[in-house]
């Protein structure tokens, strides 16, 4: 199982690359869209790159619930287990 700290580090790299914003001031529980101020399509771009980087697929119905880094860490852990 991948350690949550490693997942977080990778997620922050992905978010920074997609949004071109630094994530230093974003806590794991912050709503990413509100904190970084991006649009719904950018949110989907992040999810697409997370799925690709981690080699998984979130259920469609979960997509709207993935709002913070912590949400993503939890969903990656659950879906990684499902996919293995």
């Amino acid at each position, binding site marked *: 199982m991948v350690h949550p700290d490693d997942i977080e580090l990778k997620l922050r790299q992905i978010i920074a690359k997609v949004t071109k914003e630094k994530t230093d001031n974003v806590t794991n529980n912050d709503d990413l869209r509100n904190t970084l101020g*991006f649009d719904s399509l950018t949110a989907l771009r992040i999810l697409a790159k997370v799925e690709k980087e981690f080699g998984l697929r979130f259920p469609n119905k979960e997509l709207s619930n993935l709002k913070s880094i912590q949400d993503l860490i939890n969903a990656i852990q659950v879906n990684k287990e499902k996919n293995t």
Partner: protein
Amino acid sequence: MIIGLIAMSGVRVRTQELAELGVTLPGFVNRGEVIASLPSLGLLTVAALTHKDVEVEYIEIDQLPKDKSELQKFDLVGISSFTARINAAYKLADMYRELGIPVVLGGIHVSLMPEEAQNHADSIVLYGAEGAWPKLIEDFKKGQMKPKYEGLKSDVFSPENYVVPRFDFLKGRSYNRITIQTSRGCPHSCEFCAASLRITSKFQQKPVELVVNEIEKALEYTEHSFFEFADDNTFVNKKWGKDFLKGITPLNINWFTETDMSVADDDELLDLMAKSGCRQILIGFESPSADGLQGMNPNDWKLKRHKSYIESINKIQSKGVSVNGCFIVGLDNDTPETFNQIKQFADEAKLIEIQITVYTPFPGTPLYHRLKSENRLLQDENWDRCTLFDVNFKPKNMSLEQLEDGIKWLFKNLYNEDEFLKRKRYYMECIKNIDLF
């Protein structure tokens, strides 16, 4: 001296059932009864045209104070509105005039229906505010304001006429998109279109360096960097388009605009769009069938493009640029089968966003004059129904009831959770296949 500039933002759909279904214009905002609330770029420009010795306040109609003494603080009030909210604008103008405060009305509807507007205003401004507003203010100061001023119909972006809109008024306000204009007009001259070409003499394009400067200025006053280019058709000129995209790429913004499907012909342009932060383009496909496009514009430009619709959509979306496909229902060749055809087309083309609007006879358009001459307007001059979602004409090849039922069917079948999720998933799959970095 203090001037209040009041923006009539948002459109409220009249048909209750449609409002409950959640209609929307270009859809980055949540669906709701107020559609796509954006700052009034026209009034921000009017503010910039006002000499510095005059104090200006910019107010969104929803933030207008209820207290009468607050309302009375202005020496002059300017109101800009489009057709769907013109009656609310007239009511507001009448109220200010009853309070003894002179009112100036402007905007596209006023330019097209000047005599009607003059019943509610001390003065009106026709066409662009450039060339009219500074003179109006000078006359007002002298107590000699005239009942009508005609602004420029051309050369609005030339150095002697151009001003940077007052983006400082955006500070502290929660708009989800900031508007920037790069051009006025569109060469396609579609019969139904009430675009700015109706109030300009020719297509006008802003020099790239002015657009870049405006975006930089706007970024000084807003936390969010999502822009909407408030154009009728941004990429008419591909050479200008490429220079423009190269100019905005270093600004790290995300953006949306309206254009036509000819962008799909040019790989370099598409790559530059994706690289410069284009999240979505709205394209007016208007009809899924060639029959529906017959006679839509003088040279049948859209009809000639019909065969390549799906190929063009696929090409654009493969670059990570989502397409908001716009269809008009109630066209003269539409039948009760058309609604299902639109749904089928949207599925086949895998459009990431779809906009359905009703054939709407806006004042001043060839469509309005034709429907009026054919005695097909349900209520002439019922501007409240010019929302793009409420029907105000007799359809040709179906009954009114069939049209209204078809619209509701389309909304239910295009705008539901399963469809949203399907479109979101398809966008994600497109993004996975491109290198964003």
